[in-house]
Structures are given as structure tokens and as C-alpha cells.
């Protein structure tokens, strides 16, 4: 038997216009826990999708050797057949079905006459639950379990398929500390049974605690593979590998001269809307007029949740803490209040939460401040067109007219429509969540230029981004967020990708 259970050789995967993976190689030894690290968008998930057959053979270049023999998977079923099981970040369980039903979904335990033998199924389910250390009745509906337990059900499901190579994508992102350490313990036990695991994670403390080897991926390429036995697996070393690129020079220069404080939050705590955990935990930050403040955090750190809860309680429950605008406390209970208070929030997912894609540019731009264009409830359509037209020219939105349907614009132009919409509300502070996600380099530069223009006009801007170079290139100060807590505040002059990444991955010590 080969020493490596898996070898992926020079995998290249191209999407229209983007090279997601370029010559990535990965080898995983039999019975090890292998971690894959990289920034958001580095290509980790794409690589795992190639491995598990989500992207079938032929849609990528390169070679996969499994158990020493070339493997070609036409779909998930093929890879599961040889014992490769992937557990996605978004769990794929049916909440209304019982644990046992979920475990054997698509793989039912049949008895006589092709009917399902529920006694057999429940008995086997109980055995599997015992293996993963989950003390629940197999007939309990999965929806009644917490996320941590659901994660264990997913692993039990993998075990029921005789898994040999288990892939976990961000398994602990949604878990609290206790559940996380429980899960890591389970991975160790599986390792003792000879099951190999690949774990994608942002949480460096977990990786250093559990991984035998770590492969770092950056911008779709393999950087290096670190080995625990050689003493290479340290947080510093991983961070260097993850961010090791030069700050790109496409950030327009800006004079910085911050004025008075515009917005400040104190001790801001937000609970998950349906789960029993804090998503934002005692966070506090402030932003001044003419200043750009960055919030850096990895996926799942609570960035968007923080911003949305500030923006009129649009996310979460049991929100506590204080919000000050110009030194005076305000309590916006809904989005309309927040807009009135001078806050604007441009979402990270503009298609899902930011725009009405089937409507034209004009109606999208006026949507958040129709009151300014109307009298007695009647909208002045001509003024509206003029406002939209001004934005189209001022923002350089590339469209034949303001009557063009927003869904047909490019990502960059859509983002400019979103910005136009919020600027028309005349906010004091503008929170931009991933403002340049999914848009091309030229449009990015334009967005940065617009931000600079706003700041020069005395607005306060908060940028939430997982791209550290972007924050370093645009901000005056950067706060780091990790697991819902503000873990640092760094003036941009002292900030480096390394010290930010260290703060972004700083967590309380694991409960061992």
C-alpha cells in the first residue's frame, strides 16, 4: 500500500475569466489529520470540490491518485463509493427527519420486500451515535439538535458510509468553544481508528492543536506543506504563508485628516437569532468624520452580524450595548430609524440583500430615500430621474440609461448603484461590507476612489473586508474581530498583514 492515501498533482481549475486553482498539489498520508489553510477565496473549497467530484473529471486539469491508483470521479457518488466523504460548512441535513432517517438518507436499510427496516436502521444509528459520542435518541428530529450535535450527526453519517477519507470544510466555524473541542477530540479518535481527515479551517489555534501536517494555499497556488514532526506547524509560520504577498499598489492615495467622532458603539452584544450563542460579544469601536475605519475578521467572526445589528437591529436577538451618533445616544429599532440617524449599510451580498435586480437603476437608487423625492406620498418621477442620472454620471455607472435593469449590469456597476442608493440617503456614516467582493480590478479602483471622495467630504466610512491588503490600502485605523470580540485596534501605519492575521485568529484558549 502506498504511504499516501491521496495525491493531487498539479490541479488547475478555471472558471470563466478566473483561474481558481493553478498547479495545486496536495498529498495526504494515510491516517493523518491534514489541515488546509488560506484566506477567503484562496481556493480551498474549490480544491475540495475537485477532490469530491462536485467538479467532475475533465472539468479540471491535473491528476488525482487515490490509494496509489488514478481516480476519476464523475460526481459525489463516485467519490463516496471509495470512501471519500465531504462535510460542508452548510450542513446538509433535513431538519424534520429523525437522526436515523438522516443517517441513512439515500442509503436506506432495507428489509424484506424492499421496505425500510426501521428497527435495524435505528439500532445501527444508535451504534453510530455512540461512536461519535452523541448521546441522543436516533428518532429525535435533527432540527431539535444544536449545530454542534448536527455536525456530529454528519460525521456519523460519514461513518455509515465506511468513510476512509473525511473532509471537513470549516467544521468549527459555527460552533462554540465546548462543541469545537468535542469535535476535535472526535477527529483524534477517528485518527486512531485509521480514518484520514482533511480539515479546512481558519482557526489557527485548532490547527496547531490537532493537525499533523498543514498545506497553505494562497491565490489558487500551493505555498508549502508544513509538518508537525519537523516543528513547522506554528501560527506565525502559517500566517506568513497565508498572506505572503506584496501590498498591491492599486489603492488611490488619500490625505487623512480625521475630525470629530461620528459614531461609536460600546459593549455591543448580539445573540444568534435561533441558536444559543453570542455572535457579537461586547464589541466596541468608533469612527470619526473624514476617517476610514476597517474591520478585519475571518469568515464567521461576526463582521456582517455586527454591522447589521447596528443597522436598525436587522440581525440577531437580545441586542444590547450603546450606540452614539455625534456623541448622543440613539436607539434605532428598525432600518428606517437607522437611516434617519444617519447610518447607511451596503451589504456584502448585493444581489441577495442589496438590490432589486428586476427593477431599473432609477428605482434602486431612490429605494432607501423615497421620502426625499415625494410630497404627500406622491413620488416626483422627474426629480427621481434627475437624481439617478446625476448618480450615473457621478459614479460612472456604465449603462445606456437609468432605466436599465440592474440585474443586467456587471458586478462593479451594481455596486456603484448600491453606493448611489446609500449616498442619496445622505448618511453621516457609511458601513461598507465587502465593498469589492466579486468585482474586477478596474471597478475596485473606482470604488476606492469614491470612498476617498466621500471621506474628503467629511463622511465617516467603515469598511468590512476579509482582504487584508484592501484594508491596509484604504483605512486609517483597523479593528480586528475574532469570534465576535474586538481583539485589537491598529493604526494603519503600524499594521501589517501578519500582526492583523495574528489578532484575527486570536481566541480564548481552547477548553481542552
Amino acid at each position: 500500500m502506498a504511504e499516501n492515501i491521496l495525491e493531487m498533482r498539479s490541479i488547475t481549475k478555471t472558471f470563466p475569466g478566473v483561474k481558481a486553482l493553478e498547479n495545486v498539489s496536495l498529498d495526504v498520508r494515510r491516517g493523518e489529520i491534514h489541515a488546509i489553510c488560506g484566506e477567503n477565496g484562496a481556493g480551498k473549497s474549490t480544491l475540495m470540490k475537485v477532490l469530491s467530484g462536485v467538479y467532475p473529471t475533465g472539468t479540471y486539469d491535473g491528476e488525482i491518485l487515490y490509494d496509489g491508483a488514478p481516480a476519476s470521479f464523475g460526481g459525489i457518488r463516485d467519490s463516496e463509493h471509495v470512501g471519500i466523504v465531504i462535510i460542508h460548512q452548510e450542513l446538509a441535513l433535513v431538519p424534520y427527519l429523525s437522526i436515523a432517517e438522516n443517517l441513512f438518507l439515500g442509503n436506506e436499510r432495507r428489509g424484506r420486500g424492499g421496505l425500510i427496516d426501521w428497527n435495524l436502521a435505528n439500532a445501527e444509528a444508535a451504534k453510530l451515535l455512540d461512536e461519535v459520542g452523541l448521546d441522543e435518541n436516533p428518532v429525535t428530529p435533527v432540527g431539535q439538535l444544536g449545530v454542534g450535535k448536527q455536525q456530529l450527526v454528519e460525521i456519523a453519517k460519514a461513518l455509515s458510509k465506511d468513510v476512509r477519507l473525511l473532509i471537513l470544510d470549516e467544521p468549527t466555524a459555527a460552533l462554540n468553544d465546548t462543541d469545537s473541542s468535542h469535535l476535535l477530540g472526535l477527529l483524534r479518535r477517528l485518527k486512531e481508528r485509521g480514518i484520514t481527515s482533511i480539515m479546512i479551517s481558519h482557526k489557527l489555534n485548532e490547527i496547531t492543536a490537532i493537525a499533523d501536517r498543514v498545506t497553505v494555499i494562497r491565490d489558487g497556488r500551493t505555498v508549502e506543506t508544513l509538518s508537525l514532526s519537523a516543528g513547522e506547524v506554528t501560527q506565525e509560520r502559517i500566517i506568513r504563508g497565508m498572506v505572503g504577498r506584496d501590498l498591491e499598489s492599486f489603492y488611490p492615495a488619500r490625505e487623512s485628516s480625521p475630525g470629530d467622532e461620528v459614531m461609536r458603539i460600546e459593549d455591543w452584544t448580539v445573540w444568534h437569532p435561533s441558536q444559543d450563542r453570542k455572535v457579537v460579544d461586547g464589541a466596541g469601536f468608533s469612527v470619526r468624520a473624514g476617517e476610514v475605519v476597517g474591520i478585519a475578521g475571518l469568515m464567521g467572526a461576526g463582521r456582517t452580524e455586527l454591522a447589521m445589528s447596528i443597522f436598525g437591529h436587522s440581525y440577531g436577538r437580545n441586542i444590547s450595548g450603546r450606540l452614539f451618533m455625534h456623541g448622543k445616544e440613539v436607539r434605532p429599532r428598525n432600518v428606517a430609524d437607522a437611516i434617519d440617524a444617519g447610518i447607511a449599510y451596503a451589504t456584502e451580498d448585493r444581489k441577495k440583500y442589496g438590490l432589486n435586480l428586476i427593477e431599473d437603476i432609477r428605482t434602486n437608487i431612490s429605494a432607501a430615500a423615497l421620502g426625499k423625492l415625494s410630497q404627500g406620498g406622491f413620488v416626483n418621477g422627474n426629480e427621481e430621474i434627475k437624481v439617478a442620472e446625476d448618480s450615473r454620471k457621478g459614479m460612472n455607472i456604465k449603462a445606456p440609461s437609468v432605466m436599465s435593469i440592474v440585474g443586467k449590469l456587471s458586478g462593479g456597476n451594481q455596486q456603484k448603484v448600491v453606493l448611489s442608493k446609500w449616498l442619496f440617503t445622505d448618511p453621516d456614516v457609511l458601513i461598507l461590507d465587502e465593498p469589492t467582493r466579486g468585482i474586477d480590478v478596474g471597478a475596485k479602483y473606482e470604488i476606492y476612489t469614491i470612498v476617498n471622495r466621500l471621506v474628503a467630504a467629511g463622511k465617516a466610512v467603515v469598511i468590512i473586508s476579509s482582504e487584508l491588503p484592501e484594508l491596509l490600502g484604504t483605512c486609517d485605523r483597523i479593528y480586528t474581530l475574532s469570534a465576535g470580540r474586538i481583539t485589537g485596534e491598529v493604526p494603519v501605519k503600524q499594521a501589517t498583514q501578519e500582526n492583523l492575521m495574528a489578532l484575527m485568529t486570536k481566541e480564548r484558549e481552547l477548553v481542552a
Partner: protein
Amino acid sequence: MTTAPPKLDKSATAGEAAPAAALHTGTSDLRALVSRNLRQSGIYVAFVVIVALVAILTDGLSLNPTNVTNIVLQYSYILILAIGMVIVIIAGHIDLSVGSVVALTGAVSATLVIKQGLPWWAGILAALAVGLLIGMWQGFWVAYVGIPAFIVTLAGMLLFRGLAQEVLHSVSLSPFPPAYGKVATGFLNGLLGGNGYDAFTLLIFALAVLGYAFSSYRTRVARVRYQQPVESFPLFVLRVVVVAAVVMWFAWQLAHARGLPIVLIILAVLILAYGVLTKRTVFGRQVYAIGGNLAAAQLSGVKVRVVNFWIFVNMGFLAGVAGVIFSSRSNGAQPGAGNMFELDAIAACFIGGAAVTGGVGTVVGAVVGGLLVAVMSNGMQLLGVDQSIQSVVKGLVLLLAVAFDVYNKRRAGAAR
């Protein structure tokens, strides 16, 4: 229905100008204009085709003045329901209860007027009040409790049907005093004389046409002032003249028959008012925003619950209006009144270009969709087609209209 998607049609329907966005002043190429307008106004073309087809098949009988008047009288309540329904559908909901509400409001009105001997207007006011109350009830459950409108109004369909039977003790009530009957069957005729052609009717229509021409012109001037694209001047004139000619022909037919139906006045006022409400008011915009992208509307400060509540209150009110007109037309109230009206109204909206997913649709589109079904049914009746076949044809037309919408959406999605 070989032409195209009415779904993107935003401006050309509300009685204002600007048919095509991408056209620039004076430079409009006629071919581009025609093809774009065809794409945007498939429903109108389909309507014209159906009208022509029915006219040919019936040897012009369908266009005879009495028949034209009849179509308006016979389908007015469906059109009124469709006006409310299209707003419900644009916001992404549905209302299955309107048929039962028509029955209940008519029953209440008949009980008060026929049994209790109250004056005719008291019956009308009571019916409208009941409609409003029902709207508030359903709006409460949809908007504030968050139960899907499908369920709330399905429950309402049973609930209000039962209440209507209860109010009437399961027997029909009739007849209304003549004054009540005037609402649906009355005409304004002979007010200014005229030799077999009612001058008053012609005058009213002429004023309406002038008003349309004037407001179109004003819109055009304003657009030019704001440097917006408009169609070239000859095309603008052509459009106004064509619309004027069609409307005056219709007026001529009415004037030649029994004069101006009161129902038509009510209908015209409602179409105008709701056209303005949906296109020109903050409320209307918010309805489209909610249907187009609920999350984005919420994050833009739209008070979604309040808007949803009023959408249903409005639907209840219009169902009350339809209840009055239906009871007036049938000169009494029956426990089974308004059966399946909801389906006719919903069909009118979808044939008129509303999207099943919400966010798209127009009042005028829904009315034309309703008229299309009306002309078709009427034509089949004139031809003596079986009731069963009529139902089959109506069903196929609805299916094709929505299939067409889905097809267009897919094509638009692929082009993206």
C-alpha cells in the same frame, strides 16, 4: 401570444409616455421601436389579436354596440378584483378569498337593504365597511403574524363563504330597490340629448382623450427638460392618435347603444387611481420593492409589515366594491355568489403579465388581461361553444401566458 414579455413594461401602461428606455430623442429607429414595443407590450398585442379573431369568427357580431356594453357590464367586478389582486401579487402574495368576500359583502348589503329596509346607500357603505374589516383581518395575519397569504386567504375563503351562508340563512335574497340596481346596470344617457348617439357619452370620452393627450404631452416635455430619452415627435403623435381613435370608436359604440354605464365610470376611476397609486406613490414603489427583493426592501428601510397590511386592507375594500356591483347586477344576494371569482381575478393578473415570483405586474396589464378573458369568453358564448370547452380554452390561455413569462425570464437569465 407569439409576441413578448409584458413583464418589464413599467411606463407605457400607466397612461404616461416613454415607451422605450433606450430610445434617444429624435434618433429612434422605427424597427427598434416596434420590436421593443412588441416585446414590452405583448399583452396589448395579444388583446388586439383576440378581439380581431373573435370579430372575424362572429362576423362582427362581437363588436356590435350592445355586445360591447355587455362585456363591460358582465366582467366589471372581475376587473375590479383584478386591480386589487395585481397589487397583492406584485408584493408576492395571493388572495384566494375574494370570491367569498364578494358573497359576504353582498349578503350583508342585501340583508340591510332588502330585509331591514334601510336605504340603498346604507347597504353600499356597510358592504364596503365589511370589506375593509375583512382586509384588516387578513392583513393582520399575513403581515403581523407572518402566516403565508395562501393559507390565510384559503382559510378566509372557507370562513367568509360560511359567514355569507349564515347571514343569508342559506337562501337567496331579492330584489333590491331600483336605486341599488342602478350601480351595476344604470346608464347615463340623454343628459345632453343627441340623435340616437348620446352626446353626453361622447363628450365625456372626448374630454378623457384630451386629458390623455395633454398629460402625455406634459410628461414628454418634462422628460425632455430632464434630458431623458423620448420617442420621436411623429411617433408620439401617431401613438396619441391611435389611442384616441380606439377610445372614440369605443365611445361611439356605447353612445349608439344605451349610453355611458355607471359601472364604467367606477371602473375608469379605479383604474386611474390605482395606476397612479402603483406607479407614482411611495406606497406603490414599496409594493414593487417588497415583491422584487424582500430582504433588500427591508434593508432599505421599507416597513414591510405596514405595507403588507395595507395591501390586504385595500384588497378587502375592492372585494367589497365588487360585492356591491355583483349584488346590484344580479339584483339580490345568493349564498353561492362569487364562486371562483378569485381564480378569474388571479388569471387576469398573470395573463396581464404579473410574475408568479412577485415584483412584476401592472394595474393596466391586469385589466387588459381580464378583458382578454372576457372577450374570449364572450366570443365563445356568441359562437355557442360549450361551457366545458370554454373552460378548457381559458385554462390553456392561462397556462400559456405564464409559460411564456417563465420562458422569457429564463432567456433573460441566460443572457445575463
